[in-house]
């Protein structure tokens, strides 16, 4: 259903047809969906974190005393009231991005087959992403869901950590001075790329979606005949 406002880039020489658009699998029944959602929420990872927070809490109480434990808990909950609303917003960003991003194009640009292209794009994007972990992780989650591979994701996170311009401007430049900033930035420049390459060589999560081939087999990758130009 192509609408006139559709911002899809028609780089392909073939107009997108209904058949070439990814089709969603048949909807699960609401009860089943709710069940899987509950199962996904309260999985092993959830219980691990719940158990660890109790364990660390007890350890903190025994190690540092009741006063420190109370203060820690108080600080934590105060921090939480600030962070949790931001996580709601971040997850909204992740969900909306996932709905907008065309999976085949994500796979082309930053997927497992993207080679250096994916790693370089991720490195630039990471350096430009402002804010702390709560603003950067939704992008990682959404890109992973949309088919980015671990090399690109690792390059993105490494670049954001090491080269993120906002941290340099807000913290590093005023506190440590220009000399330090220049040495550290130049020294760190190649590392997001190296981290992305290394991450691909090392075992880890697999890409969630493979590059799609349209049903009639006419386009081996999403940009169709683009390479022939």
């Amino acid at each position, binding site marked *: 259903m192509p609408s006139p406002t559709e*911002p899809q880039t028609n780089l392909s020489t073939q107009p997108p047809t209904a058949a070439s658009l990814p089709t969603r699998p048949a909807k699960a029944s609401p009860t089943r969906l709710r069940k899987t959602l509950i199962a996904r929420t309260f999985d092993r990872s959830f219980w691990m974190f719940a158990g660890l927070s109790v364990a660390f809490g007890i350890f903190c109480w025994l190690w540092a005393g009741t006063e420190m434990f109370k203060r820690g808990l108080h600080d934590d909950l105060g921090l939480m009231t600030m962070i949790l609303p931001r996580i709601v917003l971040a997850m909204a960003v992740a969900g909306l991005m996932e709905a907008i991003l065309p999976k085949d194009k994500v796979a082309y640009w930053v997927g497992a087959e993207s080679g250096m292209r994916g790693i370089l794009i991720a490195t630039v994007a990471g350096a430009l992403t402002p804010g702390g972990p709560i603003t950067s992780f939704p992008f990682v989650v959404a890109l992973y869901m949309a088919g980015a591979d671990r090399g690109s994701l690792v390059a993105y996170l490494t670049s954001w950590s090491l080269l993120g311009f906002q941290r340099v401007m807000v913290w590093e430049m005023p506190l440590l001075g220009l000399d330090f900033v220049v040495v550290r930035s130049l020294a760190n420049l190649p590392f997001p790329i190296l981290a992305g390459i290394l991450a691909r060589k090392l075992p880890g999560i697999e890409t969630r979606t493979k590059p799609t081939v349209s049903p009639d087999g006419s386009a081996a990758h999403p940009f169709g005949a683009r390479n022939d130009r």
Partner: protein
Amino acid sequence: MTDSANIFIAIVAAILFVVAWRKGDSAHIKGLKLAFEHIVVNMPRVFFALLSAGFIGEVLPRDIIASWLGHESGITGIMIATAIGFLMPGGPIIAFPIVVALAKTGAGFPALVTFLTSWSLLGLQRIFAFELPMMGHRFVANRMAAALILTPLTGFAAWLTQMLMGMP
């Protein structure tokens, strides 16, 4: 700082909502549904992860960890800087003043750069609070393996950069 981050991410969310809505195909509804799923799945575990990370931060003695670096330089300094970056809890508001303090005790650029790299890439508390609950242990293990190999190298790269630029 915190307010600007909230405003930034709210604006991004609003822009994405409009883009999804304009895209048609009820992509905005689908996006909100996916967002709801992310919130339901991630929120409870991030809550407990943050709680754990908070207790870790309470227990780890920042001053003592920072004092390990002392006057060490060269390879020993780089290795110790890697270790203290891994252990040091807290955000930039904690880490950067520590770098300033370390610089005053006589630590060189290579060790300081290594500390910042390690704290950024391997920092236990942040990995625990965000990356592990959201991305899972296999992603974290993969990224940490790559980072662990590269972190000491950033110290050598800093040393080399300093040499090439003719800095003392």
